[in-house]
């Protein structure tokens, strides 16, 4: 039996259409829209004003608070305005608009592509610099990396886990990165290892990417303590808790963090961004984005400046297909449907997926036939069939008892439900309310 997580999970059609596509640089857009909330936590505070000239890599907004992150210009140009705009989340949030004038980078960035393997900074210096460079988790959660690297007092990290699972159907950006930037990822891993002061590293990759597994295995031979493990293809294996269980057989406790079981996990994309930040002084202002869809002419992986509008990516991949019914930022399981292709790419955008009209509508909702499939696929051992009516009836104390807060919104229940019931929709509503109640309890009276 091959390695995977224990509970639940599904295997939707993989549809990795852009798996063979090399990473291409997307043309630098005439203007960029850089949102100030690209990370989990408080929005960053702008440090530039309307009319200021900026270079690519220049700090334009500073992280505000412990869980927040710096934001840098992704092009050279002039700040045209700072105002609220609808971003991928669908909410209106502040963003910095820059009119591009060229591609001048700040001088400190080393643009020489040669690999640098020696790590000169100390652990503490690394963590500080990662914070400065605005690195966040690139797997999608966008949790500020420097916060994750600061292991709380009394806890010790034993394993560093690198997430190369990419279990979402369609997406291939991590896959492409592992094939083309394997060396850099390996050095990035060494940097993270030093910052965390751990000995053991495991890179987890699903078995539908055998080329990436063998490539990284060969590279890993140079780095003692680094193992690359192939995993049975199963969604949501890229979920942090699932991956940790699959690789080291430890269960992160309910409400706890990976560090509670002495593990810290990062995405391969994050490891690459860490390499660039530490070895090349390059802040996070571009990333790899998969643009894909069955009707799209050329599904591809692009290196994209943060703030580029989604429409530019679609154009570069052959234009918006006639039959498009839904545009999704991210994968089909956890991605967000966006209302307009004019929204900008953010740090957490791993892909843009175009679904045809025929796949964009949900089925008619039928009565629950108690088939219990939602329970068997739930990776957290919850009972979606029960949580949905509890949420509808606003029974929040019962929802809390039934562990609704453990739900990571992977969508396996809604995917599986033969009656097309909107299980996750109602669970999300319930979670939001229960979360509010829990927070209000913690506040001193």
């Amino acid at each position, binding site marked *: 039996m091959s390695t995977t997580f224990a*509970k639940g999970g*599904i295997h*939707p059609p993989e549809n990795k259409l852009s798996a063979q596509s090399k990473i291409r640089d997307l043309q630098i857009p005439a203007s960029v829209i850089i949102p100030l909330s690209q990370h989990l936590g408080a929005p960053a505070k702008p440090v530039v004003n309307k009319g200021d000239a900026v270079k690519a890599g220049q700090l334009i907004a500073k992280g505000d608070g412990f869980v927040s992150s710096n934001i840098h210009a992704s092009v050279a140009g002039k700040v045209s305005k700072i105002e609220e705009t609808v971003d991928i989340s*669908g909410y209106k949030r502040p963003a910095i608009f820059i009119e591009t004038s060229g591609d001048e980078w700040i001088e400190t960035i080393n643009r020489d592509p040669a690999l640098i393997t020696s790590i000169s900074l100390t652990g503490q210096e690394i963590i500080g610099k990662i914070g400065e460079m605005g690195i966040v988790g690139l797997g999608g959660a966008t949790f500020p990396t420097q916060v994750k690297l600061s292991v709380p007092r009394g806890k010790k990290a034993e394993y560093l886990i690198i997430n190369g699972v990419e279990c979402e*159907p369609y997406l291939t950006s991590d896959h492409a990165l592992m094939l083309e930037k394997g060396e850099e990822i390996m050095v990035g891993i060494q940097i993270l290892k030093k910052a965390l002061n751990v000995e053991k590293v495991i890179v987890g990759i699903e078995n539908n990417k055998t080329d990436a597994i063998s490539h990284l295995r060969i590279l890993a031979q140079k780095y003692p303590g680094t193992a690359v493990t192939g995993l049975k293809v199963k969604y949501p294996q890229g979920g942090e*808790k699932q991956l940790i269980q699959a690789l080291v*057989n*430890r*269960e992160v*406790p*309910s*409400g*706890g963090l990976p560090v509670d*079981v002495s593990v810290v996990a990062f995405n391969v994309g994050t490891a690459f961004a860490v390499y660039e930040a530490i070895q090349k002084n390059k802040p996070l202002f571009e990333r790899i984005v998969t643009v894909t869809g069955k009707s799209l002419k050329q599904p591809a992986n692009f290196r994209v400046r943060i703030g580029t509008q989604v429409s530019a990516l679609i154009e570069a991949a052959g234009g918006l297909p*006639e039959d*498009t*019914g*839904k*545009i*999704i930022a*991210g994968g*089909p*399981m*956890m*991605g*967000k*449907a*966006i*209302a*307009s292709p004019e929204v900008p790419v953010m740090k957490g955008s791993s892909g843009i997926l175009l*679904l045809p*009209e025929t*796949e*964009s*509508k*949900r089925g008619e909702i*039928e*009565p*629950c*036939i*108690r*088939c*219990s*499939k939602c*329970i068997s696929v739930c*990776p*957290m*051992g*919850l*009972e979606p069939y029960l949580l949905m009516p509890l949420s509808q009836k606003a029974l929040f104390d019962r929802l809390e008892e039934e562990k609704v807060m*453990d739900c990571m919104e992977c969508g396996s229940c*809604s*995917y*599986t439900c*033969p*009656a*097309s019931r909107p299980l*996750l*929709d109602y669970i*999300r509503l319930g979670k939001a309310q229960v979360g509010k109640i829990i927070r209000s309890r913690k506040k001193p009276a």
Partner: protein
Amino acid sequence: MSQLITVSPSPHVFGQQSVKSIMTGVIVALVPAFIMSLFLFGIGALVVTSIAIVSCVLTEYLIQRFILKTANRISDGSAIVTGLLLAFNLPSNLPWWMIITGSVFAIGIGKMVFGGLGNNPFNPALVGRVFMLISFPVQMTSWPLPIASRMHYLDAATGATPLGIVKEGLRNGEVMSAIAQQVPDHMRLFLGYMNGSLGEVSAVALLLGFVWLLYKRIITWHIPVVMIATVFGFTGVLWLIDPLHNASPVFHILTGGVMIGAIFMATDLVTSPMTKTGMVIYALGIGIITVVIRVYGSYPEGVSFAILIMNATVPLINKYIKPGRFGKEVKHG
């Protein structure tokens, strides 16, 4: 961009299974048993099954249309499944009006009064069957002879079921070795050459259906395997203790409603527990109650009662037997 695009929360892709595909899968799984019943009971099987299906579907349609005034859902196929299963639990010489009465009761009282598909606590086909057993005890326990009654409906020659023969024989003070001469051998029981309800007799056909249900991922193995194993184990112990006054465990699992009950009735999605552990407890209960009724009760057969009794415990099982939550215990390797 000219066209309108859809915006909805994730997930954006969905699996292939639907309520209709599940019901269709169950109907397909019942085909081998139906073919065997046509072979064994001929015209009677065809007439009884047709009447049951038509009256179940029609009852559901009329109730939805004129009483509940809700959308018409008969196309989901669940009423066809109820009709088929009800018919499979009836003798093939039952008068048409009794079948209609039972079907109306099964769908009307067994299912629709609770709000229709998904809301009924008891298996509708069994509700109908037990209602008929109590209302028409004579007709419901006269069993046409297999093969011989193929060209007959109401006028079929009848006899007792193997379980009835055993019950009667033991009551008259006979021993099993003598009674065994009066019932078909195990191979004939396995194929279905016996008096009984028209769809329950052929173990081999029902097992084929079981394989199909597993292959289509409509049910899991837990309920059928545990229930059959419980009946086998319980009767096996009794048989080992006193083989003169107890039928063999093989005889018990091949006769009566054990096979159809375990594979098709106890596994009814709506009325069985939601977790695997719950399913095991439920199936264990059905097995035990079945044997208790067969061996110590006054009825020769108890599968229908056992399933209905355990149906009543399902809400309790669901309340207390929870799936194993992720992250309950902290393991340190």
